[in-house]
């Protein structure tokens, strides 16, 4: 009883001791904030990675691919049929993209990762549709260009795209060609059309501003209204177009009409043809070099020995925005069959198309590693040369790097609390010295040494608990308000804490793990108690007579 009473009274009367645990409080708060933010990042990243990657991928090491996807899928079903929710075949191949920058009019070439997908099943194995910009595509993905409704529901405004853009661009190009014909640069309009878009470098003096920059909404462009209103059906390539100057009625419709037709659709990672930066006012801004509706040329290797470059024109039908820069800046999706055709991915004898990977989604709760191991047993590496990986395996280095970072941060921060422990040690020694006479009194009244010791241990315990709980509250409050706090810091320092050009998150993601909080609090309390052991032992060892004499 006296232990509790005295611990409590000492706590109430010694505010200096409370000061000594402020460090514990701060340490605990920091640990909780750091852990929550790191966990937030990790969870967010896991979600995104997992969303983009399917659960398990069976990938051929060979660009030529694994033959007969149907047979493989059946085999996989035999092995893990119960766990499989969906499966799809893909072809992925490194490629070059070539398109005209509509801001400066220059041609841009970039390496990309071209992926042939089956648009109906690909979305079943991973979050693909969700990352597209057009609402109809998010609902049902198709490799067809759509009317201008791209980026609906997006936080920042998306420029005019789709058929609207395609028609305006076609109109503009025709005018350019007509001008050139008038100037005698080009002999015949037919020639001009076949080379659309012009492949030679555009003279900057001639095209000082590149393509006409479309306003954010089509309504702001009255002179184009008439042009666009001529498309009553809402589906571009069926509508009648206004005067096309070089087309006479008796000309057969063999030539590609850019205003009404599209090439094979391609979904581009948004960062392939856009840059995120700041305008003169420092506001965040996206620059698009190409938009849905524009044509691009893709060059990729075929399956010949040695491979030859194949190239074809595609029309951007949508953007893919997963907010993982690694993917957004390299992925380009085209229809699987088209890519197989262009690359010649067929087994010569049977004519069955081959694919480069089979992506599998397992039902929720299935053991990924177990299924992977079974598949690895079925398709031995030395025999098939397939790489069978779970999404975690694929992102292993990244995930383990983040894990390592979290661990090291935790160790460092725990050292801070340990330093706080030394502060408590020193303070407690002083308090024991100050309380020497009290110890003598208690002993003279028959308090055993252990009892005296437990007073000071209890004191340390209650200080530790008070400090940790305060830290817990502070940390949780901070985590709860972290974006507000970040806003304040931005205001005070004028520096952006969380630069959205660097991170794809507009807000700092946080996940509070109750178990982590519990461990942090327990650890801090433990340190406070350990730090009070030495002073408590010193108090317990005091000789009663000496202690009573102490002035």
């Amino acid at each position, binding site marked *: 009883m*006296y232990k509790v009473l005295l611990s409590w009274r000492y706590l109430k009367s010694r505010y200096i001791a409370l000061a000594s645990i402020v460090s514990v409080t701060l340490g605990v708060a920091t640990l909780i904030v750091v852990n929550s933010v790191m966990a937030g990042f990790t969870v967010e990243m896991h979600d995104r990675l997992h969303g983009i990657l399917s659960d398990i991928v069976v990938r051929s090491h060979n660009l030529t691919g694994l033959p007969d996807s149907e047979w493989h899928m059946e085999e996989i079903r035999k092995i893990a049929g119960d766990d499989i929710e969906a499966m799809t075949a893909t072809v992925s191949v490194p490629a070059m993209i070539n398109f005209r920058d509509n801001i400066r009019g220059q041609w841009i070439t970039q390496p990309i990762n071209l992926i042939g997908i089956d648009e109906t099943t690909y979305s079943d194995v991973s979050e693909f549709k969700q990352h597209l910009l057009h609402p109809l595509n998010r609902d049902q993905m198709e490799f067809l260009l759509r009317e201008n409704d791209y980026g609906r529901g997006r936080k920042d405004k998306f420029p005019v795209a789709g058929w609207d853009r395609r028609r305006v661009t076609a109109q503009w190009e025709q005018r350019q060609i007509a001008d050139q014909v008038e100037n005698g640069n080009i002999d015949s309009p037919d020639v001009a059309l076949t080379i659309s878009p012009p492949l030679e470098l555009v003279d900057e003096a001639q095209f000082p501003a590149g393509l006409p920059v479309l306003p954010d909404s089509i309504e702001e462009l009255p002179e184009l209204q008439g042009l666009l209103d001529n498309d009553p059906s809402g589906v571009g390539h069926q509508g009648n177009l206004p005067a096309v100057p070089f087309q006479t009625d008796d000309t057969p419709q063999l030539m590609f009409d850019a205003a009404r037709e599209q090439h094979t659709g391609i979904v581009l990672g948004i960062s392939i043809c856009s840059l995120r930066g700041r305008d003169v006012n420092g506001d965040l801004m996206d620059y698009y070099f190409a938009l849905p509706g524009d044509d691009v040329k893709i060059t990729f290797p075929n399956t010949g020995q040695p491979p030859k470059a194949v190239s074809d024109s595609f029309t951007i039908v949508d953007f893919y925005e997963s907010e993982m820069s690694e993917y957004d800046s390299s992925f380009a999706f085209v229809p699987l069959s088209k890519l197989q055709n262009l690359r010649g991915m067929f087994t010569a004898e049977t004519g069955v198309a081959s694919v480069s990977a089979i992506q599998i989604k397992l039902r929720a709760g299935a053991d990924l590693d177990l299924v992977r191991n079974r598949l690895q047993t079925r398709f031995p590496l030395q025999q098939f040369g397939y790489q069978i990986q779970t999404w975690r395996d694929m992102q292993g280095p990244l995930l383990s790097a983040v894990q390592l970072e979290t661990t090291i941060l935790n160790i460092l921060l725990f050292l801070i609390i340990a330093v706080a422990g030394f502060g408590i040690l020193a303070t407690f020694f002083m308090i024991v010295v100050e309380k020497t006479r009290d110890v003598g*009194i208690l002993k003279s009244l028959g308090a055993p040494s252990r009892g005296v010791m437990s007073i000071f241990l209890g004191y340390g315990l209650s200080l530790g608990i008070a400090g940790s709980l305060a830290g817990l509250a502070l940390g949780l409050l901070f985590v709860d308000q972290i974006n507000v706090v970040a806003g304040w810091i931005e205001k005070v320092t004028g520096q952006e804490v969380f630069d959205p050009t660097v991170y794809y998150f507009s807000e700092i993601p946080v996940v509070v793990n109750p178990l982590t909080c519990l461990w942090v609090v327990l650890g801090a309390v433990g340190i406070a108690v350990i730090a009070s052991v030495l002073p408590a032992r010193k108090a317990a060892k005091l000789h009663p*007579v000496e202690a009573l004499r102490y002035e």
Partner: protein
Amino acid sequence: MSSAYKLPKAKIAVGVEQSPQLHRAATSVVMRATGLVKSYRKSKVEIPVLNGVDFEVREGEFQAIIGTSGSGKSTLLHLLATLDQPDDGKIFFEGNRIDNLPAKSRDILRNRYLGIVFQFYHLLPELSALENVLMPLMIRYGFTKYMLGRRKHRRRAKALLDTVGLSHRLKHRPRELSGGEMQRVAIARALIADPQLLLADEPTGNLDRQAGDEIMEILRKLNREQGLTVVMVTHDDAIAEQADRTIHLVEGRVQSM
């Protein structure tokens, strides 16, 4: 009460002042010490304090130990209170040897059978008068047991504070009390366990005449009315005169008067 010790008559005669009340000594011996030797070490020099002290106090007695500063009277009291252990000699409490008991047993002895009052009151500054008085009971009982008997204990503590005339100061902290009041709290605390023996180390040494007289009045009253055995150390002859019996300590020895 355990059996009294049969003491050789000669030994009693030595060092014990023959007082008129000696006939009362027919009652049992509460505490007895023989041949107590104690010395302190101060920077490698041994300073002898007690050189073979014999001592005895009987039930119901009010005994004073008087001596000048440095005569070893406080040391003797600490030994009797088992706060310290003698280098040589034996101490018996109700017939049982107590100087060589293990620490735990001595703690229990101090807590339940001995009441101790100090010159400097030695109250716990963070606790109220009432809590200070209750402290021995808090030490004695565990948390639950104490809380179960809490009302009874508090009643008894209040009654004791009433006995020493402090019923109006229950909630006051020691620093809010005068010296005399603090010493009265200390006496109440010493009595809470209903001890067999009250050991007082210069209880008036730090008080003015009037407060000292009040304290002495309380002690004598307790001795007279409740038959409390009191051993009091003092340097003041006037105070010592109020005791039934006085022994003189001179340079660590009991001096016959």
